[in-house]
């Protein structure tokens, strides 16, 4: 386990910024009440086997006691680095993203299943959508009862969405909670 270097940090923050915008500082400076100390610590990012984890400092201190090969995971996984050096967010980051998301889309009950199978979100399935989404923004997908279902990338801005026909794609799928069942082995 090692902390991220400059380049990796910028990549991670860029990806996160697409989804959470200014709330990034909330993520980075979140006080953590874990651990036996009274004063709250901070959260930090660690890299282990090409996966990025979001961990509280107290936990990191204790995790240093475990041998590198034996350490499987710690804290919350945010995403992975591919062999080509690119960073992708995975579904385990959904909790963190959903809390701080700027751009949200709520799905109608009829189209929830379709999204959970890995399909893109069509305009006819959109119940509500946040104003001021521009193209290629990160979007978190919720059900109507505010349960986060996954996230993706906006295919069009909100303005264009208004004029689209009902079969147009609004959000391109990136990750959803159905993956816990479908791709259990890969996670």
């Amino acid at each position, binding site marked *: 386990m090692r902390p991220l270097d400059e380049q990796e940090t910028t990549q991670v923050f860029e990806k996160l910024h697409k989804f959470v915008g200014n*709330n990034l500082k*909330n993520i980075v400076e979140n006080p953590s*009440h874990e651990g036996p100390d009274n004063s709250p610590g901070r959260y930090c990012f660690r890299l282990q086997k090409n996966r990025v984890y979001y961990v509280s400092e107290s936990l990191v201190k204790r995790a240093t006691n475990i041998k590198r090969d034996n350490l499987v995971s710690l804290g919350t996984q945010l995403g992975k680095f591919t062999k080509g050096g690119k960073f992708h967010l995975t579904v385990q980051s959904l*909790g*963190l993203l959903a*809390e*701080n998301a*700027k751009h*949200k889309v*709520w799905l109608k009950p009829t189209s929830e299943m379709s999204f959970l199978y890995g399909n893109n979100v069509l*305009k006819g399935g*959109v*119940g*509500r*959508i*946040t*104003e*001021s989404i521009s193209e290629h923004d990160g979007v978190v997908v919720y059900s*109507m009862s*505010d349960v986060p279902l996954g996230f993706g990338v906006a295919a069009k801005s*909100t*303005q264009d*969405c*208004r*004029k689209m*026909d009902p079969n147009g794609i609004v959000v391109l799928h990136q990750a959803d909670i159905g993956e816990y069942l479908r791709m259990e082995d890969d996670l």
Partner: protein
Amino acid sequence: MGKKMGKKRQKIVLPPELPPEIPDEAVEVSDEDVQFVSENQEYTGFMSNLDTKTINKQVTRVADVKEDELESLYERRLKKKALDKETEKQGLEVDPVDALPVKTLDGKLHYRTVPKATQKSENEDKDEDNTNNKDAGTDASVVKRTKAEKRAQLKKMRKEAKKHSKEVAAVEDVEQIPHAEVLDEVRKDMTAEEANEKKKFRLAELGTALLTDPELNIKSLKEMLEISKDGDRDIVVLALKSLLAVFRDIIPGYRIRLPTEKEQEMKVSKAVKKMRFYESTLLSAYKAYIQKLIAIEKQDVYKRVAVRCICTLLEAVPHFNLRENLLAVVIRNISSEDDISRKLCCATVKSLFINEGKHGGEATVEAVQMIADLAKAHDCQLHPDSIEVFMSLTFDEDLGKHEAQDANSKFKSKNAKRKNLKEQKVLAANERKRTRKEMMSKTLEEVTAELKAASLATDVTERRRMQTDVLSAVFETYFRVLKHALKPRSESGSSPELAGSHPLLTPCLNGIGKFCQLIDLDFMSDLMNFLRKLARSGIDSDGSSKDVSACLTVSERLQCCIVAFRVMRNNLNALNVDLQDFFTQLYNLIIEYRPGRDNGEILAEALKIMLCDDRQHDMQRAAAFIKRLATFSLYSGSAEAMAALVTLKHLLQKNVKCRNLLENDAGGGSVSGAIAKYQPYATDPNLSGALASVLWELNLLSKHYHPAVSTLASNISMLSTSDNQIHLSNKSPQQAFKELSLEQESFSVRVDPKNSNAKREKWNASLKHNSMGPDLDLTVQVDENAVKSKLSEHYSLLHDIAENERLRRELAETTLSLNLHEQYKKQRKRRTK
């Protein structure tokens, strides 16, 4: 002296015949008679004062005189009277101030003779002033009278003037002053008065003549115009007004088009010639009149009169020629500082918009475009009334839909896809329908065009085009105002009152709210951006130093949010957009609201539109609003607290998950979401962590001094225990706010029921009945003691809090000084060591 022998008519009783006239010289007066008369002056003095003229008047019969001579007879009489007055002036002495006049048998006022030379000149002047004032007084009252009675008034004026002249004559029976100049001056004034009276008569005559038979007497218009060029202000005003009355009734219901050269050369019948002559005279006189009005409007003295005339003309005959000039003046004055002229102009423009049938819509287009230009020229520093008039505009309901259908039918062959579009078509179309028409054969076009010109019915496409023009001008103005409101302070220039430098913003927002369903989708995003920036404008954006937009008041920002929601709601068929930013703004505005300074009704409306009507909410956000509303109701007045509590109840009933706020579970447990602790100062409702808080404020509120608030608070806190309470309260926050702000008065009355006699008790009882809303379910028996105790509790609590704070401050100070002292001691020890 003319004396006519009365002609004998059989049925009429004639006055008796006079004795044959004997010339004075032939009369032989005996000495005895003379002596007798001179001795007994008291008895015989009356003879010298006999008014032989009046006696003779009984004899000459007016009815015998023919029509034309009648006029001349009257005029002669007037002239003679005037001359006589002058001669008589030398005779009698009068001082109307000291003595009451006596009315003799023949109707003449006879003043007691007291010679006082110096005072007379004053009195004369005073009398002159009085007559002038009376003149002005009657004029002023004439000014205020409605135009419809003008004609009758003109006739009355004649009689009044006659009476007036008699009074003037009586008053002018003033003692002759030795100073010749004063006499001359008086004579001059007299003749000026005379002349004025004459002119007024002339005006009245001409006016009535024109109204009875306009075609015959059309030339008298010129004469009336001449009179209006007089020097005396009253005459000019009267002339203008009589001309106004005449024109209003004479002007035909069609636009006069002067005959072209060709037509003039043709041979036409007499009737047509007559008509042409009549029309051309009318038109030229009208032109001259309007030019005079416009010229005179620039002088302050005549401004109101001119504006009034112009407005009346525009309202009455908007279809006639020269409408543009009238419109230009009206619109120029639509923002003037003079209240009356501004109100007149606004009323005129509104009536123009409402009565479109009179002018077929073109005047609306022109007026709206002119107002838009005015706003541009003045850089949006106009009186709000000028934009308020836009609210009386009406558009066809299906303005957008028709265009869609039309365009569809034409583009069907080209773009089959467009058939499936459900959304509104673009209104400010790039390709006009007209260009499509050019593709049709030309002959067909010509024929249809001629047919249209001949028919008076308003063509549908024409109407739509005009309405589109109006709409685009209106929105241009609104967007200009919005842009102006967004300009940063340094740029908004030399206007000293920067804080209130957006007078047009409120009516602009109202207008946008009203016409929002007609806004084009393209503009929607820009509009939303603007509104967002405006709503945010109160807070400094961190980082940028001077780039802050102009500060708007809390009420204005609330209105921005309300308008944004209305716009969004009207376009629901396109997409259900969630306005995150505006919710954040509302969240912050609730805290910034101050009861005295800001408008509570707008807040109530905002709460209703944004929170109560909305169907779904993010749980975290809803909880954040609930918590903040509870905090708000703690420190605001009872009316706002009531509105807030009603909204709170609504939100709690709708969002079941928020009910854990009512449980006494401080950490929030598992439902609290990721944010473990409540951040009361968070600006973003989503990050406030309100799900982890508890609504302890309800407990405090149930001890509120106002019975309604306390009951509602206790009801809410019991909400979770009463399961499945689907009954939603019918009250909106606005109603609650209104009720309580009215109830304030009735509340204080109810406080002393003991001091009431029978009547007052009844009144109290009826008040109680009226003010209780059916939903509030109050069973309050207010008596003085309970209220007193509650109020005293409330204030003692406040007092305690203040005390507490003070003591803590003291404590902090003393601990600080103690610490310092200890440190100092330590340092000393170290040094000594």
